[in-house]
């Protein structure tokens, strides 16, 4: 009898200790893992993080198979409506930010571009580097997949919601863009700040018709002078707020935000 009671007690405890699940964007994944690891150590909690994509994360939130959906894009209207249909109210918080850098082949002479020039290049109106002050070389545009949050953000900010040219090369991962740009002379692409290295050259951009060109780095992104910075989101249901509050507060605390910066992100505020 005692044994059974003990087992019941254990089972009850395990179900109580069932941790918080975070699921979604692969861009947010490394951040989520770092934060979860530190939070688990600090408050003896059980937070687990998985990837799969922003869409997967949000649909899991609708289905109730995750507690927090991580997303590198804002929740879409039809996803919002599906949550509404299910009678679920949700909250959105910005956990960190990410800066996108435009990169070219290291031998490219061009080192700065305006937003209008970038728009021309990515929509296919500008086809040769000599049109923007470079060598007589065809521009090869590398982009991310159409459904990635990175793609949508770049489209919104740099292309002013115009569509990319059909002939851009869509790469499955940011690492693949870095690899391809480093081995293609006329290449241009965009990657997260954390992916910058010596194999490619970062371009200074101007969002004021060429008056000032800004380099992308942690300082300019944080100061708000670098324009291509996007927020990264956590979505959770209002009814779970008490459960996830401690974790969210930890991520937004100075300790959590320093951790985000160490992993190559920019703090939320």
């Amino acid at each position: 009898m005692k044994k059974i009671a003990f087992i019941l007690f254990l089972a009850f405890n395990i179900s109580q200790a069932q941790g918080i699940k975070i699921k979604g964007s692969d861009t947010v994944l490394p951040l989520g893992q770092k934060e979860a690891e530190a939070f688990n150590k600090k408050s003896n909690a059980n937070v687990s993080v998985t990837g799969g994509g922003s869409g997967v994360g949000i649909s899991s939130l609708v289905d109730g198979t995750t507690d927090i959906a991580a997303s590198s894009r804002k929740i879409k209207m039809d996803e919002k409506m599906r949550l509404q249909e299910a009678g679920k109210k949700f909250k959105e918080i910005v956990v960190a930010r990410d800066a996108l850098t435009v990169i070219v082949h290291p031998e490219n002479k061009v080192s700065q571009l305006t937003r209008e020039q970038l728009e021309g290049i990515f929509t296919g109106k500008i086809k040769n580097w000599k049109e923007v002050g470079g060598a007589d070389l065809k521009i090869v545009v590398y982009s991310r997949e159409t459904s990635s949050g990175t793609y949508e953000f770049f489209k919104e900010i740099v292309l002013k919601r115009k569509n990319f040219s059909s002939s851009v090369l869509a790469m499955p991962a940011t690492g693949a863009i870095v690899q391809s740009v480093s081995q293609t002379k006329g290449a241009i692409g965009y990657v997260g700040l954390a992916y910058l290295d010596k194999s490619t050259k970062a371009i200074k951009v101007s969002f004021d018709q060429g008056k000032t060109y800004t380099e992308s780095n942690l300082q300019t992104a944080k100061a708000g002078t670098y324009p291509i910075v996007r927020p990264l989101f956590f979505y959770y249901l209002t009814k779970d707020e008490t459960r996830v509050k401690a974790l969210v507060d930890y991520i937004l605390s100075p300790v959590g935000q320093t951790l985000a910066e160490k992993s190559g992100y920019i703090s939320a505020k």
Partner: protein
Amino acid sequence: MIKKYFEKLQIALLAISSMITTVTIFLIVVFLFSYGIKFFTNSSIEKGYDIVVHESNPIQKLSPVILQQIFDQEYTFWHEVGGNQDSLEILHFEDLPNYYTEEQIGAEFELVGACITDYLSKHPNAITIIPSINIDSSFKGKIVEVASIKFTDVFTTQKWFPTSKPIALFGILPMIIGTLLVSFGAIVLALPFGIACAIYMAEIMKSRWRKYLKPTIELLAGIPSVVYGFFGLVVIVPIIKNVFQLEVGETALAGSIILAIMALPTIITITEDAIQNVPNSVREASLSLGASKWQTILYVVLPFAKNGIITATVLGIGRAIGETMAVLMVTGNSAIIPNSFLQPVRTIPATIAAELGEAPFGGTHFQALFTLGCILFLFSMGINLYVNYTSRSKN
């Protein structure tokens, strides 16, 4: 007595497992098609939105392609799309907060209808989108009719913009052509190599060496496709770029080469087995008639092993047409119709693999990807049936 029942039980187990396999395959196909067909009932406007213009605007309906070009700012006047002489203005829904304060829009966006009515009265030449739930008594404007997705549009449009807002375009023609091109190239490269290698291994090579070569080739089949893809991106893509003096190395040819390498183990092992299974008496008969070794292989052994070679080809094509990850990494994935092997292409499996994870569950884009899956399924089934049919009818 017990033995008899035991035997019956064993047979029943065999029957059950084959039943389960069949039912599972059937269910997967039903699942695939149930989503894939739903796609054609959707509108190409983002779910939950409508396109609106001012009441005085004579435009009644617009095609999805024209609408997409309007929102890409490719037109400046309404008469270019069949309207009056006025200039064309666009209001993106996301820009609404630039014109109205938060109180005017409402905390739950409940006053959007009034805001858009106000905007349209000030800008009678504007076109914009509005959430369908906001079309209420406070809203005055004309809803533009947009045709739902048609079967013919999907197969003739050449633009694949599945996430474009507010109008998404789902033209899958470039991807069908891309898939067929890459698979065709792969088979053309892999078959001669594979069959030659199999003949050499089965007929000419000393069995001492074959003992080592065959497991090595079979090992190739066990390498994950991501590894092939990465190898392709880092090694084959630059080689193609330098050899053909191209601007981009990510081409259909790169995909074909990688797929050929991946299909080789299947083709070699099955062909080799088929050749091994040719009875020795047949070979001896041929040799005793004075035929040389080469003549024996070409005119006796190969025709005898024909069915095995066809199976190898079908399985090889299956591997090539359905491969995702390796192709995704080396073909560049531009959704344009290629006119040579030296251009970037986008294949159906690569598109599904790259986009399914991020597409909102159950949405139009999600269903479009299932439609692509259905097409892929029909392709490989068609090829299977065709090859089976032709090989059987010749026997």
